[in-house]
């Protein structure tokens, strides 16, 4: 099981949990497991054509998954996935 760190703007969709445990051999599997546990997350993470939204970055430990093997990045037991959306405070 890997841990997914949920950023505060998205915690309203994970019943306020800041960490969710998911199963999956790869990052892609883990994220699918995450959105099936918390379906409201889906549209905030993925656009209609199933791609991860460009203002959301996914890290495995401290590395951006874009520079690893993206969704195919393999996950170990103690790996932490972090979802890092862009924030700008103030008014949008």
């Amino acid at each position, binding site marked *: 099981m890997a841990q997914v760190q949920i950023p*505060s703007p998205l915690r309203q969709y994970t019943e306020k949990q800041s960490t969710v445990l998911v199963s999956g051999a790869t990052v892609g599997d883990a994220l699918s497991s995450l959105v099936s546990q918390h379906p409201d997350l889906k549209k905030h993470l993925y656009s209609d054509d199933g791609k991860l939204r*460009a203002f959301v970055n996914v*890290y495995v430990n401290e590395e*951006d998954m874009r520079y690893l093997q993206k969704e195919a990045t393999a996950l170990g037991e103690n790996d932490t996935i*972090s979802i890092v*959306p*862009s*924030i700008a405070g*103030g008014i*949008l």
Partner: protein
Amino acid sequence: MPTLTEPVSLTNDEILRYSRHLIMPEVGMEGQQKLKAARVLCIGAGGLGSPLALYLTAAGVGTLGIVDFDVVDYTNLQRQIIHTTNDVGRKKLDSAAEKLKALNPFLNLRTFETKLTSANALDLFREFDIVADGTDNFPTRYLVNDACVLTGKPNVYGSIFRFEGQASVFATEDGPCYRCLYPEPPPPGLVPSCAEGGVLGILPGLVGVIQATETIKLILGQGDSLAGRLLLVDALGMKFRELKLRKNPDCPVCGKNRTITGLIDYEEFCGIRGQEAPAGENDVPAISVEELKKKLDARADIFILDVREPHEYQICNLNGYLIPVGDLPKRVNELDSSREIIAHCKMGGRSAKAVNFLRRSGFKKVYNLTGGITAWAEKVDPTMPKY
């Protein structure tokens, strides 16, 4: 950083003022002279800008530019600590200038009462060495980033949301820029603002001082800057985490094959220009607070639905039935569609969404309270608190 060809001199007063810097080898006379020669531009004199400007001024940065066209609001005082109660209604630039000059008369302060735009950013940035971004919206963040890359100035970045923050240094020569991290902004309306989402008052203090620290380190050439690292601050857990940032070789503004070589229309880029008003807020069936008061006085059979959060209900309420807007789909069967329902929230936005949802679910007699409980407090019951 421009190397000093001739060191700027420090007066005896300055030497005494900065003695605690001078006695540290990491700063010393040479470092303090670099600070005095440095020109830093702060975008924003608000939450992040307050601690940024104050600490840079205290540290002896020679020239500070501030860009802000806003006026001090009462609700700013919870976190924008450069402004005081007497400054409410005053231009933020005037308020900030007064405090900064009082703190350090040696400061060469340049104020720019203007919105930062694609028309003025490049010329403005060329007059400074470092830009510290304290803005509160995505279009300006992308503008600042692109202008920094195009003019070759480091962008000391900080951003906040509720009780979390981010900090980094973008647009250094070999480092990533903001677009390397986030090529595209979120669509408008997806991420709430401080007015809607709230913000822990201390948070911009924490992040703003981190920005001031990074700015000073860049000037001094000391320590390890946050370039290439994203610092994530979680104030509630008091945890600091670091993620690696890499320069994206395909970045359109700082990569190998640059397609962005000039500033663009950032409002359009962020999807704001030409965007219709949030779904149906303007054409959802509504009633005014005066009409609601009349109906209540006439003892009409009305069901008031409050779609705010429980902690807002505790501040003030109209004795409505509370179902937070996010819970509405799950709890819709608690409502009687045969009754006239008036839905309200704080200002009318969330309740408009609730009315749209209920009408699509078959409720015919449901209306939005225009202006929300804030309008009630303004026009019907002035004893009710506003928040």
